[in-house]
């Protein structure tokens, strides 16, 4: 595996939520494999290899996408919709939402999201979600870490 492979694409505009999520991911030993984008437009650029990411190879795709629902420019819902129509449609998507009662969660599931995590993301919260998804082995290619 090459050192520059991105394991997790993480789209989140709030710096606080980003801090907590990245910390939670770091505690899972994934610190070098997160790529954080700060809005939906950047997320789409990454997914479609356009804009800043026009040189990114479409053959390399993340193993998980963490998507905040409320983002400027392009919402998480819109990103999800476009993502599921892109070559990256098979990549599992976990939605980050501030409320369990968010009506958008249902829509996200309809659009093909795999799970959701209620913010703020604490490591246990995150661990739980990842466990429920059974994504450990997908994300962590090296089982010796556990």
């Amino acid at each position, binding site marked *: 595996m090459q050192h520059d492979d991105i394991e997790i694409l993480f789209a989140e505009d709030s710096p*606080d939520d980003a*801090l907590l999520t990245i910390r939670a991911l770091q505690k899972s030993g994934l610190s*070098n494999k997160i*790529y954080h984008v700060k809005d939906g437009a950047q997320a789409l650029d990454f997914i479609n290899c356009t804009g800043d990411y026009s040189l990114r190879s479409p053959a390399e795709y993340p193993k998980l996408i963490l998507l905040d629902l409320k983002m400027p420019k392009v919402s998480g819902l819109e990103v999800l919709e476009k993502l599921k129509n892109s070559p990256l449609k098979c990549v599992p998507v976990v939605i980050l939402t501030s409320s369990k009662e968010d009506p958008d969660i249902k829509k996200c599931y309809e659009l093909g999201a795999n799970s959701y995590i209620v913010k703020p993301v604490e490591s246990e919260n995150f661990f739980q979600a990842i466990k429920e998804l059974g994504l450990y082995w997908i994300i962590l290619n090296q089982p010796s870490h556990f």
Partner: protein
Amino acid sequence: MKPALKILILEDSIIDADLIQRLLKKEKIHFECSVAMDKESFEKAFDEFSPDVILSDNSLPQFNAAEALKIVRQRSLEIPFILVTGTVSEEFAANIIKSGADDYILKDRMARLPTAINAAIQYRHVQKEKQEAQEELVQSAAKYRALFERNLAGVYQITMEGHILNCNDAFANMLGYASCEELKSINAFSLYFSASERKEFIADLENKGKITNHDSVMKHKTGSLVNVLENISFLTDTVARQVIVEGVMLDITERMRVEEELRQEQYLMQTLMKNLPDHIYFKDKESRFFRISNSQSQVFGLTDPIEAVGKTDFDFFSKDYAIRTFKDEETIRLTGVTISKEEAETRPGMPVRYVSTTKMPLKNEAGDTIGTFGISRDITERKNAELQKEFDSNNLEALINNTNDLMWSVDKDLKLITFNDSFRRIIKLTSGRSLVKGDDILSTQFTEDQLKRYQEFYQRALIGEVFTIIDHFEHPVEFWAEVSFYPIYNGDVLMGTACFSHDITARKKSEGTLKNMAQEMLNQQVQEQKKITRAIINAEERERNRIGQELHDNINQILAVTKLYLSMAGKEDSKVKELIAYPLKLIDNSISEIRLLSSKQVTPLQDINLKEMVQALLDRLSESTTIKTTFVYNVTNGAIADDLKLNIYRIIQEQVNNIVKHAASKNITVSVQASGRNIHINVTDDGKGFNTTSKRKGIGISNMLNRIKSFDGDMAIESSPGNGCAIQIKIPY
């Protein structure tokens, strides 16, 4: 050896002073001594001798021990002061001890003096150390305070319950508070974002006694989060008799953010190095690669870019090329310039690659050049196409310049854009001018006429018309050219016209010869035809004469004999005479008709008098009809050949017959006049007329035309309905 103990003795009695010294010597105390007897010498000795110990008598004439002690203690607290006196009251002794003396010795009990000196020195020494220790303590507390207060890291002390005992401004500020005071009302534990995490690490702390580099998330006063790194340990406060928790905390939020940005930048950089089709390399000061892009490593035939590390251009390229690049890089390193150029990369056993490359100095943060880096783009395809194009255009140029055809193009202002060698040569030949691009094209035309024609051609060409003209020059040699004009477009915009001139003189000349031959053949044919026509006409004329003669000479004779016999028969019998009267009349009529007919048909074939014949024709017309005739004849006798005269007569006869048959006219004018080399025959009537354009040429008119053509003449008919008819005939003679 220990330095000598310096003893200052204040004593007015020399004997007592001596006694003290002897006693001390006896006790083997190593010392030196200064004796003062009054205040003045005491002060002087104190300053200059700097004694270690002072022995003082109680009363001197103008000085005493209390005053001396006062002076000493004003200047130093450390020097032992022992009173050595004869008699003294208990009260005085107590007072002077209280004032700062170390001891007192009665002169009659001097044996205790050495011990007292030692004790005093010892005491003072201890005192000094104590004081120094205290001073040190104060200093260290101040240092600690400074360290605490001025620390960039947040430092705090809390109880096990989370009450904040103390913290520095850095700690308070880190979490958005102004000072420790503002924080003291808040429980430290509530400042942690995650209660579960906080519990976890407190338990950990209790187990281990200290925790280092713990990553915590704190709540800022504004509600946002602060990521910190902290060292925490227990501290036992002996005064307050409680265990406190002391922590040092660093805000790493910004550092984490920068690290994240750096990671992203690295990712983008890696993506660039991995996927950019342009080749990127970084070289150190010795021109050794230390980083190359994947595209560059592919060019080098490496599976991994890392394999290039430590290698140089000499490992991959031909020696010549490697020497060149090394020189370039040396220049860049020494002067700091950027080199941009297109160059041919040559590698042993490989086709030449052309690249467009930019090489720059690589500098560290301090601005020192630590190597070079560059980016290059493969332009082999473009370069090869360019070379091919150049080759093609050279060939095309040769093609254009080797043809004898003239080629030139002009812009919309009629300035020459370009032209081929032939054009240049011809212009030089015809006008003596040496043309250059931008010259006015019309300056190459040399006659007024040509100028006008070509002005018009260019005008047509410059509105986009495509056309070909045949041009004919007569100067300096006869010259025929086929000149084609084609518009030149740049996209949709008309830029000018391209002109091609092909020499067709040879063709034109041979064409002329052929045409002449054909014309001649045609003329001969026509002449033949005319001869045939005239022969036919003459034959007809002779036949008519023969028939006329026959009618006149034979039929009329027969009729005359028949009449004679019938008349004779009538003489015998009146009944027969009556019966044959009518047949006789019929015979007379027949004779008369035949005579008339034969006179019409019969014309003399030689020595013709045209004037008389036409006059007779017109007279007969006047006799038998009401038509008035006018005849004008103005031709010198003998000027016209007989066959032409006969034909003119027949033409007039034909037209007069036509008029009588169709025109219903009242007047006919006939004129036959010679003028110059032509005979003009006009026949005019005032009858019904007809439309000359409608095709109604009867056999009469075509007969007339045949006759006229056979003599190379022509005929014009002027007529319209209601306006009569005028026929004008012109025949050369």
